[in-house]
């Protein structure tokens, strides 16, 4: 009898540990997570079709020689059992619209056709929608999203930290005007159906954005929202103006609503979340207090510095509790430029929205990606959140580009 009860207890314990394990993530009450896939490669952005087939764009081709990975969970246990892939080029952006799949390299955007089962029909002969975009190492990844009319928005990141004459060099001044902005440091808009477009056929939609990786179309406001990676290394280049501790907190990572023609102010200003002001960059004569950027946008949301927002997703589904409806999820890769102070991020955050406007403070939604020891060193982190997708049932998928894990987060009523 004693033995049996012990055995039952052990079983119960094993069950509860399993249920509570949540693939190692810490989630709000009522949410659970499964490891949907693991070790698929450097999974950057992810997209899902209306049958729940998930696609990931890899930064580099994986061991199987694939750079777009297709994952299907036919038995619905929260774990993909059929994993295939195609493509050879690395990249970040991926977007599914009906039976069409867009994927980006660091200088182009390609369009694939999917069949009724979500299988690609032209894996080696996609249409080239956009080509010859600047890809100059820094901030080269091209994130993409579409509006309901079928226009495609592409981030072209600035190949620079603060538009210095000599990038990331002590004492080098900011160039005036910043020559990078004519062809990078903003969002470009193209026709999602036309082939072989480049700068001449596209249009600079918004500017003054150092590097955007997370972007999403908001259906409530019918407008584009983006998250920017703020500049690095204020303390390294201006040690008399900024301490290590100040650099760890400056500038804010920012979210903007970008309408056509908008300017977010890079490289001339950065956003200081404590003074709640746009501060003139030291490369342009700033001293940490002087304001600038009269015509530049103020951010809608300011997050702690250097956490690196990698993906933005407005939640449309009904599975999650009402407070999440239309709100924004943001995947934070985790910082490196807070050193020597402890790193931050490595989580998925949530910002509630009402009528297309932030309606409350941001909060941590899913945490624990860095791993149990939680030392949060960029190399040591177990997972680094990078992409987000919402399944047809309202579950949230999170990709990790370090070891290639995909997490599926669901809410049980």
């Amino acid at each position, binding site marked *: 009898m004693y033995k049996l009860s012990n055995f039952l207890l052990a079983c119960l314990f094993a069950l509860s540990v399993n249920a509570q394990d949540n693939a190692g993530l810490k989630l709000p009450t009522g949410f659970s997570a499964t490891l949907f896939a693991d070790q698929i490669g450097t999974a950057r952005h992810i997209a899902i079709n209306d049958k729940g087939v998930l696609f990931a764009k890899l930064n580099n081709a994986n061991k199987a020689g694939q750079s777009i990975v297709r994952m299907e969970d036919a038995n619905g246990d929260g774990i993909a059992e059929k994993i295939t892939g195609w493509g050879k080029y690395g990249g970040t952006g991926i977007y599914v619209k009906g039976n069409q799949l867009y994927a980006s390299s660091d200088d182009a955007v390609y369009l694939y056709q999917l069949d009724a089962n979500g299988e690609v029909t032209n894996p080696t002969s996609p249409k080239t929608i956009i080509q010859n975009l600047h890809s100059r190492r820094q*901030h080269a990844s091209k994130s993409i999203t579409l509006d309901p009319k079928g226009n495609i928005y592409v981030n072209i990141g600035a190949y620079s930290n603060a538009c210095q004459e000599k990038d*990331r060099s002590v004492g080098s001044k900011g160039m005036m005007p910043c020559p990078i902005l004519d062809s990078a440091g903003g969002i470009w808009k193209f026709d999602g159906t036309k082939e072989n477009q480049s700068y001449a056929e596209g249009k600079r939609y918004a500017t003054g954005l150092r590097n955007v990786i997370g972007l999403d179309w908001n259906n409530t406001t019918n407008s584009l929202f983006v998250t920017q990676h703020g500049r690095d290394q204020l*303390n390294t280049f201006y040690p008399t103006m900024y301490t290590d501790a100040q650099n760890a907190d400056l500038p804010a990572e920012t979210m903007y609503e970008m309408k056509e023609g908008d300017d977010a102010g890079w490289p001339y200003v950065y956003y200081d979340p404590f003074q709640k002001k746009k501060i003139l960059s030291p490369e342009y004569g700033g001293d940490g207090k002087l304001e600038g950027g009269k015509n530049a946008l103020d951010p809608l949301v300011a997050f702690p510095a250097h956490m690196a927002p990698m993906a933005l997703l407005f939640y449309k589904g009904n599975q999650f509790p009402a407070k999440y409806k239309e709100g924004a999820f943001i995947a934070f890769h985790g910082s490196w430029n807070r050193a020597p102070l402890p790193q931050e991020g490595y989580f998925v955050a949530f910002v509630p929205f009402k009528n297309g406007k932030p309606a409350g403070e941001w909060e941590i939604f899913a945490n624990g990606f860095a791993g149990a020891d939680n030392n949060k060193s960029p190399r040591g982190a177990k997972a680094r959140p990078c992409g987000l997708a919402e399944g047809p049932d309202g579950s949230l998928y999170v990709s990790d580009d370090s070891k290639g894990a995909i997490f599926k987060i669901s809410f049980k009523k």
Partner: protein
Amino acid sequence: MQTMQFKIVSLIMFALFYCVQADAQNMQKGKKIYETRCLACHQADGGGVPNMNAPLDAASNVVGKDIARLVRIIRYGYNERIALDGFYYSNAMTASPDLKDNELADLLTYIRNSWSNKASAITVAQVQAAKKKK
């Protein structure tokens, strides 16, 4: 004879002690330079940032024999995006053209003997020879 032996042994002991001491001092000086100029990107654990800043810990080039290349990278910065131990890094490394030969030697000694790295210390003479190589 006994005293002679004693003298030799103590001389060796002293020399050894002096070397270790000098090494420790060089390591300490190298660490200081690392913390002010390199740590932001290469991190306290020498692990760098995946895809962005190359790791120095367990990096074959860092503990390797091509000292001239290491000196060149530190003095002129580095932004070539070639594969380093099979991975690519996107950031542009800051140049440190103002470091003196003894500082370069200390810094190299430090990065070659920190974290899991174990390689020969670098002398000022080696730095000077490396600079001549171009």
